[in-house]
């Protein structure tokens, strides 16, 4: 149905696709996997005409096409984005209605005067939009403003909006990124029914390997811009090249982790959060949250989307300011301190969105990270060398611009930037999001080594699998409250986790 043949794409001297070919058959769910930077998103962007190809052809239903974004609806191609592209000034319903733009006719005159024709069209489309929102599992008020909804709802809205334009082919860029287990299960069921009931062909780019292998009819694996294998999930799973470049030799086994020392009860609390309450504007998000981090331990903060993980970390950093409770850092209250003072006191946060400057080189990014602290030339050089030793991937790309790095490299750079300041506590906000399994393994060993060197780490995650073996203790957060504390393995199995965190599948 849709074929790319020997497509070359390069930008800024980087060859993103090398003679890349892929064939998607009518009615199948096709998975595209590969390490970060393999060119998966570029492949989708090329299909959408967002990226220009230098060579190669694209064939749709026997016809050669030269895709342009505006003509995708005509072709019957719909796509979603890695970071959901939501129109924040519109409500959930209106977002979905935008999907019908090309198939509806109301213009300025009909729109202003609200003619019968316009109103009838609007009513029919709204009914369909609500139906689609329910079909993708959206449960809240369709009239809710999109900016007040959580990430999971944004994904649902984006898929519903894309379906609204009646696509025959759906291109999904990392649809499970940032979703919880229950949401992922629901997504898989939804995609199957979209295929079975509407006859939509689906191509999805994914890092969630069990999801891809469980859902897809066929899978294409790519590496460094080229296709390395295509076949059924069973064939791909055992393909030597795929295992080597992507899944990693340890795939399916326990993740490597440093030795977990039995902690002495004397372990001092370096950070002590007591009954913390905070929020934005009129909304209270964190309620009476208490947790602590001891010297030399890794603590996990687990919870679903919108549970309050990011807000809790941000409150520790002083933005938003706490409304109640206290944050005690090394025995002194830092409640109410401005963020720069908290950072200066030795708490380093790596935010969820890669906090790097896209238009500056790796070296310049690292230099910028030491802004405001006086370092001798020798000390600065020593710290940069240390980062290059810690993150060998960065060492090869020191003069590359931040924006040209792959997702994994960006995350490493974001962590290196924080480490340049030699923090006494490292906070990581969902560091594994959008990363290939091999990179997540690498991240795990880097974090384990930091812990072994004495740096306490707190990781906010919803991907339990990689943090569970690392962390000594875990907190479960939901609705802004800490609802449970314990060893991550126990927590992962506990009733509370199953219910609160994974949600109930019937919902």
């Amino acid at each position, binding site marked *: 149905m849709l074929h790319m043949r020997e497509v070359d794409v390069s930008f800024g001297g980087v060859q993103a696709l090398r003679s890349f070919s892929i064939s998607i058959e009518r009615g199948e769910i096709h998975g595209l996997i590969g390490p970060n930077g393999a060119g998966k998103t570029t492949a989708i962007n090329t299909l*959408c005409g*967002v990226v220009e190809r230098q060579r190669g052809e694209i064939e749709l239903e026997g016809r050669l096409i030269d895709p342009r*974004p*505006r003509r*995708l*609806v*005509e072709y019957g191609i*719909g*796509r979603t*984005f890695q970071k959901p*592209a*939501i*129109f*924040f*000034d*519109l409500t959930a319903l*209106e977002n979905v*209605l*935008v*999907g*019908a*733009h*090309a*198939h*509806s006719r*109301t*213009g*300025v005159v*009909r*729109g*202003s*005067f*609200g*003619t019968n024709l*316009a*109103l009838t*069209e*609007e*009513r029919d489309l*709204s*009914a369909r939009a*609500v*139906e689609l929102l*329910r079909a993708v599992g959206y449960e809240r*008020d*369709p*009239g*809710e*403003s999109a900016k*007040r*909804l959580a990430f999971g709802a944004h994904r649902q809205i984006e898929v519903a*909006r*894309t379906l609204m*334009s009646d696509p025959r082919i759906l291109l999904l860029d990392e649809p499970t990124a940032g979703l919880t287990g229950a949401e992922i299960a629901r997504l898989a069921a939804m995609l199957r029914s979209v295929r079975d009931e509407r006859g939509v062909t689906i191509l999805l780019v994914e890092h969630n390997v069990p999801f891809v292998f469980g859902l897809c009819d066929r899978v294409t694996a790519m590496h460094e811009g080229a296709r390395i294998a295509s076949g059924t999930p069973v064939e791909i799973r055992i393909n030597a090249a795929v295992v080597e470049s992507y899944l990693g030799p340890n795939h399916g086994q326990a993740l490597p982790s440093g030795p977990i020392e039995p902690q002495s009860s004397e372990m001092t609390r370096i950070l002590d959060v007591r009954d913390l309450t905070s*929020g934005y*504007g*009129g*909304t*209270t998000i964190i309620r009476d949250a208490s947790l602590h981090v001891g010297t030399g331990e890794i603590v996990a903060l687990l919870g679903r989307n*919108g549970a309050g993980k990011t807000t809790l970390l941000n409150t520790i950093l002083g933005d938003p300011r706490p409304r109640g409770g206290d944050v005690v850092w090394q025995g002194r209250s830092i409640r109410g301190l401005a963020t720069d003072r908290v950072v200066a006191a030795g708490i380093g946060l790596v935010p969820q969105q890669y906090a790097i400057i896209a238009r500056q080189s790796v070296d310049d990014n690292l230099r910028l990270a030491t802004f405001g602290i006086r370092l001798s030339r020798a000390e600065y050089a020593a710290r940069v060398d240390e980062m290059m030793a810690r993150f060998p991937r960065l060492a090869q790309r020191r003069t590359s611009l931040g924006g040209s790095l792959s997702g994994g490299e960006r995350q490493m750079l974001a962590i290196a930037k924080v480490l340049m300041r030699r923090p006494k506590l490292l906070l990581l906000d969902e560091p594994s999001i959008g990363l290939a399994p091999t990179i997540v393994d690498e991240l795990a060993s880097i974090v384990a080594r930091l812990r072994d060197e004495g740096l306490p780490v707190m990781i906010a995650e919803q991907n339990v699998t990689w943090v569970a073996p690392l962390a000594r203790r875990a907190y479960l957060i939901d609705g802004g409250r800490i609802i449970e504390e314990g060893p991550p393995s126990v927590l992962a199995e506990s009733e509370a986790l199953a219910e609160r965190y994974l949600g109930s599948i019937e919902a």
Partner: protein
Amino acid sequence: MTTIPPLPRFPYSPLVYGAVLGIAAIAFEFALPAYPRFVFGQFAILVIITLGVNLLLGVAGLLSLASPAFVGIGANLSTAIMLRAHVPILISIPIAVLAGWCIGWILGFVSLRLAGFYLAMVTFGFLDVFLVILNEGGDWTGGGYGLIVPMTTLPLIGPVTLNVVIAICAFTAGLAIVLVRELQRSRIGRAWLAIKDEPIAAEIQGIDVPRMKTLAFAVSSALATLAGTYQALLLGVTNPSAYSLNVAVAHLTYVVVGGMTASVVGPIVGPFILFVIPELFRAIGQYREVFYGAVLLLVLILAPNGITGTIYDLAKRRTGPGQ
């Protein structure tokens, strides 16, 4: 199964509501003493202009400094064809508005690739060129002196006195508020907001982005031109110095203070606070500029989303948190 929520629409045509609001505005006019009545007419004109500027900036996300040029086009073109071609007012105004629509379309089309600061610069250039033409236009523009608007009559109504002009302004403003609101909530308005938020995603959904941008320019320019034709009638003259960059900045300020949202309340609130209040309280008199600056500063510090944006947030807060 969940039921489909009722659509947030009124049961009657927006024209009905617009007419009701327009007639209410006329009734209000005749309840006012002479001077406030004149201020009310100017306010109605500013509301029409600000609706257009907000549509462009607050809804479609396009920053233009050309609004006074279209006000000037409306004032001068309708007056000039009345004077020179002896065309009645009922024809001269539609011609001027049509011209404003077309020129707006062209301006939007040539500046399609531009955004933000660069777009502002090009539209400023357009305003500058317009002012040169106005000053060099000889008999058609009255040069640097402007034109004197002739006395005209309307069928059924009779001579167009000041009261009649103000009534026309008030009625049109009422109608425009309702129709622009309807337009901004229609398929076209959604497309504008979508383009402002996520242009690539909007394009992939099949929205013709260039067409929608030029359309926003055309609608916005037509509104400013219409307001311009009224302004000439209200003041009795065209004033070439009334279309300067300062005026463009004032229009933008009305939008910012009112709130750069898809609401039509902002374009009413902005001119009311920054124009009507200083006009009515003459005591502010010489401190007018200070008042203006103070209001702007206060709004930007205390209500960065503009007055309507902040009221909306407060209302949402009372109905409870979103999540």
